[in-house]
């Protein structure tokens, strides 16, 4: 019995000790500095775009030594299509934990969240927007149409045109585009794939007419001559090998269509303003580093566009309001 009691006591001490350690380490100064491991939640699978983004930033932050030697614990919470992880972060109670919790948050996360759940941006503290991405439409080697005007002519002649794309951002971009063109979903149809690479697969096989992709995913196929950009869904033309694609206003009497796909970071609603400011500065340091440009922006062909926590708040809120309006909510 004695042995058992001893074991129980040791176990209790082992369980409780870290709680005390945490409490005593709380920063006493007015500013905020990380005093414990940082939980960073990613709501998609390891190896995916959001995961790579998160791990690169946490790696650069550690190298730049802006987190007072603390460790990032990146956790992939994929239950419920990511909604479970987002809900957990939004509900973190005020205190030290709230100041040490980050969530990778992109436009592609916000859209399904507000569409399918009651969770809203108001339940988070925006920290930063790091980069934006935009879409293009491409034709394949065997496409019937050689440019976007030919596509519009075919639609006018009563033919159906099919675009393949991915989820979330792509659907929003497509809907905005057909709205601007004044056609319906039968005239220009959209096929949602699980990923952009699945969409590219279907155009390489000649099963669809057009494919929607961000520059990075299509890059190799453009270089190899298997895809050709025909429309930039952006307010200005792209550069490099994508420069040949006109924007919508160049094609005809339309306004340019652009749905910026942003990559950002938020914290729980209960994160303090000091902590949000600290994290915002830390992300700014990353965005200004060469490592960020070399290892992320250039490699994944994104547009670097840093917004600090105050700007990000306005930007994300505007995006949410627009999207809710388009849903009729």
């Amino acid at each position: 019995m004695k042995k058992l009691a001893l074991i129980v006591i040791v176990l209790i001490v082992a369980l409780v000790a870290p709680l005390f350690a945490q409490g005593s380490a709380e920063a006493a100064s007015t500013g905020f500095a990380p005093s414990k491991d940082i939980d960073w939640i990613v709501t998609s699978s390891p190896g995916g775009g959001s995961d790579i983004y998160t791990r690169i930033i946490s790696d650069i932050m550690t190298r730049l030594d802006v987190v007072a030697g603390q460790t990032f614990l990146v956790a992939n919470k994929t239950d419920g299509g990511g909604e479970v992880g987002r809900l957990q972060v939004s509900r973190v109670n005020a205190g030290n934990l709230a100041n040490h919790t980050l969530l990778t948050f992109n436009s592609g996360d916000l859209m399904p969240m507000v569409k399918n759940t009651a969770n809203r941006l108001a339940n988070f503290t925006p920290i930063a927007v790091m980069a934006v991405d935009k879409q293009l439409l491409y034709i394949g080697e065997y496409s019937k149409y050689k440019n976007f005007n030919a596509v519009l002519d075919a639609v006018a002649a009563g033919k159906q045109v099919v675009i393949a794309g991915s989820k979330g951002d792509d659907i929003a971009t497509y809907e905005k585009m057909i709205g601007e063109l004044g056609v319906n979903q039968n005239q220009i149809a959209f096929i949602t794939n699980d990923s952009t690479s699945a969409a590219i697969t279907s155009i390489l096989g000649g099963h669809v007419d057009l494919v929607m992709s961000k520059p990075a995913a299509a890059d190799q196929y453009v270089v190899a001559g298997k895809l050709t950009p025909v429309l930039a869904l952006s307010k200005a033309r792209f550069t490099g090998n994508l420069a040949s694609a006109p924007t919508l206003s160049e094609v005809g009497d339309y306004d340019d269509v652009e749905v910026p796909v942003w990559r950002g970071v938020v914290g729980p609603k209960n994160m303090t303003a000091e902590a949000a400011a600290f994290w915002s500065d830390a992300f700014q340091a990353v965005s200004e580093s060469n490592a960020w440009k070399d290892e992320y922006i250039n490699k994944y062909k994104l547009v670097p566009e840093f917004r600090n926590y105050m700007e990000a708040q306005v930007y994300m809120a505007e995006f949410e309001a627009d999207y809710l309006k388009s849903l009729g909510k």
Partner: protein
Amino acid sequence: MENLQLLLDGFSVLFTLQNIGVTILGAVLGLIVGAMPGIGSLAGVALLLPLTFKFNPTTAIIMLGALYYSNMYGGAFSAILLNIPGDSPAVMTALDGYPMATQRKRPGQALLTSNMASFIGGTIGMIILTFMGPALADIGLKFGPAEMTALLLVAMTSIGWLVGENPTKGLLLTMLGILLASMGMDTLSGSPRYDFGSIYLLGGIPFTPFVIGVVGFAQVIKLMEERNKKTQVSIEKLTIKGSMLTLHDFKRLFFPAVRSGFMGTFVGVLPGAGATTAAFMGYAAQKSFKNEEPLGTGAIEGIAACEAANNGAAAGAFAPLLALGIPGSGTGAVLLGGLMMWGLNPGPLLFTNSPDFAWGLIASLFLANIVTLVIAWGVIPFLIKILSVPTKLMIPIITVVCVVGSYSTSNSMYGVLIMFLSGVMGYVLTKCEYQTAPVLLAFVLAPLLESNMRKAFIISQGSLDIFFQKPISLVFIIILIAIMVFPVVRPLLIRLGLMKRKAS
């Protein structure tokens, strides 16, 4: 022969001390990861990916390729010994592997059969990959939504071979599988279905915990009924000598393995269909061939068919990945992410721009295949000792394995809950003499079928013509009709003397 030359170049890249070392390391890790339920190749590759960033890209991909590949071997171990599939492609292996190990008391032979079949299937897949990689990838591209729909319809009818005596039960089970699979977010519009207001159900029912429950945990509940039985297999037989395959055994496994190897490789190339689908189809197809013992009672043919198919598919999946930069599976997508992080651009130019890398990887698959076979062979005598553990001790051990496996799929208790619930469901089904295989097969195929069929209808604007206008899909539709009509027409043909009555 140019490809052979390139493959030899690949081997010259491979044969450095470091690369051989990581191949062996990858193969060993893959076996372990594969044998642990729940942690499949996807999690294994994702976990090890960050470790490889300090390597040069070729060494890194060689290690991950070996891991991915040997994982297909490992999955069979726990399927055969514990009736818990180590990864999803091994579900079908359990159907014959476990009865062979416990009822027929030939655990060593069951493991060896799975290893040999994996080796044969994998070798076939690699040879095809070597000589026809890019061409194979192009064939895969020809399979658009209409073609995939027709193919999957044929695959769905193969459930008919799995249902056994009672077609009504089989139909019911298939419907149940489809219903469960349709929970969660609709793949095309992204709107929630059957989520009952729960955000967990928004993501649907995760496959791995579901399988561990239906197959593994249901087994635990069944074991509880017979908990006082001493051991499952007497200990004397558990030696390496008693585990050898006879020549007759080998003959029985060889042809199913070759057939399934070809089929698996082909399925692996198709967009969206992976090793799991290949194993299911390989097994279902085997039902229509001659088997010495009925499938499902521990037949060597059954183990061989599905193991060869999943290894063939694992090799085949590299064709679109390397030739076009298109991942055929979740694991492929992680590998692709890895390629980008190592500074390579996966895509149609990979073979041209980085031949060292592409051929080094293919060469490493050959090496991993042999290394894994040897290692797996070596550990069999130790592994089969598991069966001599008394049942009452096995119950808690298997339960822990089930819980850990289902927890690790998404690192949350949600998976564990799904595992327990589907375990109870699986037990009740088995108890009432419903087979669980049709549920699992429908669960895997239904989402693929749904999304492809709906895509096809978007392209054709709702017209059925699309399935008849495309030659590939037309062929599958004809096969489909033939399969459906044949049982009705057969008595007629026999009466007319055009066909012989089946000797039973």
